């Protein structure tokens, strides 16, 4: 579809929504209901469309969105099948039309789901309590940073404990949220074994250490076997340890964060627990902690007494809120549903298949000339995902990973994730099949990559100028950081276009 921007569509006087007419008794002079001078003068320059036009426009945009319609081996996110039944159930008015401030006796269903799911996460992690208020993985990291503040403040040590330690391969959100919560960030580099050395950690730890925030395995699939010693070292110095479980899939059912000594952890319900990605939310970063941090958790907590469920708002030491109300409850329901569908056996099977698929993919990927693997010296099988490099391809052909991404979509498969900042591996790609993608899909995806790599040698211009059969051609993003060119709204675009 060659679909104009919605503000270019429509005709004056056309309507897509009719408000109810006020009943005769309700009708009143609107101006008399307003303080003087607050009335809007010019109507907003919104488009005027019929309902059908709006529907068609956005369905066209939907059709121009690949989503999971292709093959999407998207790494660092563990793409899962998002069971349709969860969408159907959560769309029911018994959830969609529920207000979080309703009397508790009319919230028993949703409270029970939250309570049941919390018990599941407690079992998976060994933690004492969970909250679902954080609106994503990053928000859960932020929650931890805030709880870290409150914990140390309660001990009178906050002024001293100004440092949060993380690693270069831990997701940027740990570093960023720690900083936003007021901490200095110490980032450990990788050591020779593909993870930071225990020595580097020990050198970083001090009585200024507020917390360690770390993911494991990292998104190269490397598991830090010394993580228990890390935790001990940080604990000895009086710091807290937070486990970012973004890469839970590979260790799911095999380890428990609490048993490794961590004080807190987080799960992404919207990815790891089969909630849909939605292009980036609605999401939930489920945050769990051990008993000693429970007083600091954001409130409310869901409590069960004699089979009745209630909300406990009481928490004098609580950090309060990281977001209004209890979080994206429908995502919690979806996550609960997913675990119930699988049970303990199913979760283990998912982890196994996920790691099997990743290693199968690796076997095949490395057969493609020019594809190499990060830290090739590490012989052990990787968990869940691995990072590869196309540096050799780039050197030989001038084609970089962005070009390859653009070209892959021409084959109806989605491009791989490259890497988070900083790019330690040149020309990185991070595909991850998870337990979702079938062998046929993985094979197809790899065949496409192989074909594009071949094409990079045979016809690099074709790759460099890709895509060729998509809704639009290659976007020139060179101006989007230039104040004279960026335009995040149509009105800015019109103004700047007129000025240019």
């Amino acid at each position, binding site marked *: 579809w060659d679909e104009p921007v*919605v*503000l270019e569509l429509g005709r004056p006087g056309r*309507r897509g929504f*009719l408000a109810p007419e*006020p009943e005769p008794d*309700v009708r009143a002079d609107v101006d008399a*209901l307003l*303080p*003087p001078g*607050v*009335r809007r003068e010019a109507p*907003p320059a919104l488009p005027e469309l019929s309902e059908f036009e*709006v529907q068609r426009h*956005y369905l066209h945009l*939907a059709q121009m*969105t690949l*989503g999971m*319609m292709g093959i999407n081996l998207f790494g660092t*996110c563990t793409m899962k099948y998002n069971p349709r039944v969860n*969408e*159907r*159930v959560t769309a029911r008015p018994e959830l969609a039309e*529920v*207000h*979080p*401030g309703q009397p508790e006796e009319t919230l028993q*269903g949703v409270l029970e789901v939250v309570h*049941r799911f919390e018990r599941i996460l407690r079992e998976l992690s060994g933690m004492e309590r969970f909250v679902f208020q954080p609106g994503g993985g990053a928000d859960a990291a932020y929650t931890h940073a805030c709880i870290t*503040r409150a914990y140390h403040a309660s001990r009178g040590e906050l002024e001293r404990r100004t440092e949060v330690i993380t690693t270069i391969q831990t997701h*940027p959100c740990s570093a960023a949220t720690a900083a936003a919560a007021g901490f200095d960030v110490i980032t450990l580099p990788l050591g020779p074994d593909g993870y930071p050395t225990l020595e580097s950690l020990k050198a970083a730890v001090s009585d200024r250490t507020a917390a360690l925030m770390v993911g494991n395995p990292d998104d190269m699939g490397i598991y830090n076997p010394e993580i228990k010693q890390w935790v001990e070292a940080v604990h000895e110095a009086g710091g807290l340890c937070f486990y970012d479980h973004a890469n839970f899939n*590979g260790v799911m*059912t095999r380890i428990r964060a609490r048993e490794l000594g961590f004080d807190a952890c987080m799960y992404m319900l919207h990815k790891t627990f089969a909630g849909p*990605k939605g292009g*980036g*939310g609605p*999401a939930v970063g489920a945050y769990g902690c051990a008993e000693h941090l429970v007083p600091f958790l954001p409130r409310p907590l869901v409590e069960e007494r004699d089979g009745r469920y209630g909300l406990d708002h009481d928490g004098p030491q609580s*950090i309060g809120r990281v*977001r209004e*109300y209890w979080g*994206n*409850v*429908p995502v919690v329901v979806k996550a609960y549903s997913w*675990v119930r*569908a699988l*049970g303990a056996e199913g979760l283990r099977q998912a982890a196994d*298949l996920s790691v099997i698929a990743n290693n199968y993919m690796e*076997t095949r990927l490395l057969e493609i000339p020019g594809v190499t693997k990060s830290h090739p010296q590490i012989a052990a*099988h990787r*968990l869940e995902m691995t990072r590869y490099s196309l540096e050799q391809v780039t050197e030989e052909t001038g084609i970089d990973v962005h070009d390859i991404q653009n070209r892959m979509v021409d084959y109806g498969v989605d*491009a791989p994730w490259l890497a988070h*900042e900083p790019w330690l591996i040149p020309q990185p790609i991070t595909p991850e099949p998870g337990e979702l993608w079938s*062998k046929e899909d993985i094979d197809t995806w790899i065949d496409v990559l192989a074909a594009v790599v071949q094409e990079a040698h045979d016809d690099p211009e074709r790759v460099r100028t890709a895509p060729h059969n998509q809704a*639009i*051609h290659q*976007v*020139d993003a060179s101006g*989007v950081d230039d104040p004279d060119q*960026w335009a995040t*709204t149509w009105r*800015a675009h019109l103004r700047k276009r007129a000025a240019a």
Partner: protein
Amino acid sequence: MANSAPDLRRELLDAIGVADPEQLFEQIPADHRLRGALTLPPALRSEVELERHLRTLLARNGSAESHLSFLGRGVWPHHVPAICDELAQRTEFVTSEWGTPASDHGRNQAWFEFASQLGELLELDFVGLPVYSWGCALGHAVRMAARITGRRRVLVPADLDPERRAVLRTYCEPPETRSHLTIELVAVDAETGGLDLADLERRLGDDVAAVYFETPTSLGAIEGRAAEIAALARGRGAETIAGVDPLSLGVLAPPSSYGADIAVGSTQPLGIHMNCGGGTGGFIATRDEERYARQYPTLQVSIAPTRVPGEHGFAMALFEQSSYGRREEGNDWTGNSVYLWAVVNAAYMALLGPQGFRDLGELILQRCHYAARRLGALDGVRIRYPHAFKELVVDFSGSGRTVAAINAALLERGIFGGSDLSTDHPELGQSALYCVTEVHAQEDIDRLADALQEVLAR
């Protein structure tokens, strides 16, 4: 799971060259392994059983369908157009990931249209992708203002919604941290419900980073002196942050018109179900000036050319200032948010158009007014503020009853009464915040008034 078929699983293992999948987990040391077995509830493997289980649980909820609800206060009952539901459930959008600008083109355009249409409502040129909630938007906006001005004091209305205030407090950090921001409450005019300008002036100083106010306020009052507030703030070099309900902007003047520098608010009213609080989303918008743009913590979509002249594409603007781009050096942080809702918001705004926003705003004003008339006429009941949009402070102090008792009696009649303000706002006595929107027909308000009359007469 596609590869769980035994033959297929074996095929994969053979290709890898391992016999037992356990070998693949060799990186995990033995002493890291789980102690004991996992005790999870039994699997409901069939969709038949699973859905039945979930339905049975959810059936224990009441809702705005089973009850007549006047609850609002941060999560509001609005009509969600059917088109919005269709898009919110459309698999392409629901499962959307991060692809290339071409493979995600439709979604990126929808996001740009979210920002563009919100920009028209607000008359502001720069709009980021949404954050988790209004409170989070406010938190980021205050931090933006602090970075812009280099100041650390923030003035907010004394009657700011307690949920929002709690979030803001989190974002402002405790006093022990270097980057702590001090929140100071500005008194509210007891008559109008707007800001007390004398108190504001008293508290303003050259160390104030931002003055935040709302219209309608957290308690539903329409702020009549917005321009004066902004002028006072500007006079002392502070940023003006306005919190607005986007649904009000068909009848109320846009924030830019009274001099707000940053506008924040909720996206939930724009076609998102309440979802037990899971429908919240927040927006941040400003003038398109580097002073502001460079401080956004969010992602934002810019329109951009493609290789083909005249064709529009979309790309992430100012990505490098985000936490994805610069880790701890970025502005605050970002991550997954409520981007699916942004697509729905875009469709909602396109459905309403200028006339829809106007009609809807006018209807809500009239319905509120009618509710104020009906409830205000009851013995012992007083309506607090004269100009209300969507929410109404109903003061039952004169009736000798508590809100808690009244709400319990209403619940027996299938009604969720207004949110109890007596704990958070003791200055209002036994008051409740009643939310009245387009979903409340006259007959609903009449039913409420009749029920209240009965309850109060007992």
